[in-house]
């Protein structure tokens, strides 16, 4: 594995704002996807191998809960319940199924999207 990568380099390569990347990196570090290395030559590392990082988990963190289903706050009408159980909940299962087992390692392979689309 390579050493830590500075956000300034990522920002340059991906043409993204470094400030914005700092926010993302903080979120990813807090949720144990990244390790932050301080000091000169510091930056960020994956906390584990890409084979062990699931895309669904990362999306869930970045999106702040990927689920469509919202648990009822107080009284739930029959209509709300039907939509929740028979649409949102199933939709969430569907999304989960699509991403099941998909790891960062697979996504970073060049041929990835040739077999999913």
């Amino acid at each position, binding site marked *: 594995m390579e050493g830590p990568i500075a956000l300034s380099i990522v920002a340059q390569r991906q043409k993204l704002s470094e400030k914005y990347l700092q926010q993302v990196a903080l979120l990813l570090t807090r949720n144990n996807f990244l390790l932050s290395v301080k000091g000169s030559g510091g930056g960020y590392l994956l906390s584990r191998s890409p084979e062990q990082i699931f895309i669904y988990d990362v999306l869930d963190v970045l999106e702040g809960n990927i689920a469509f289903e919202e648990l009822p706050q107080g009284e739930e009408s029959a209509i709300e319940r*039907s*939509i929740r159980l028979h649409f949102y909940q199933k939709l969430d299962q569907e999304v989960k199924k699509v991403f099941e087992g998909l790891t960062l390692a697979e996504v970073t392979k060049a041929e990835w999207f040739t077999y999913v*689309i």
Partner: protein
Amino acid sequence: MKLSTKGRYSLQTLVYLATCRENCSIRSISEATGISSGYLEQLMIPLRKAELVEAERGVQGGYRLARPDITCQEVLSASEGDFEPVPCKGCERTDACKTHQIWALLQSAVVDFSKQVTIAELASHLVESEAGGGI
């Protein structure tokens, strides 16, 4: 995933309309769903435009579903616009971007499944579990 209130309320409105035998007034929809009349009027504009609901004037007037086979995807597309988890349009890196493919995968999963669920089906579950109660 955040669906807007607009999308969620529009689904509720259409499921309610699917349970009605006659035209429904805004007032009765409001009583059944708890959505304010003013907001319902707003929701109806894109739904009518997309020809998912029809409105009739007069004493027996009100709203009804335009057809029985409306899907959740049609409702959400009318009320929310196209479901795009990330606005990649116009990004110069789209072709090279690996994450773009993830978002595309997420988008097609949501759109494809939403096309399979009809408003009528959601309404039928309602009748089964509640025998028309609660509405």
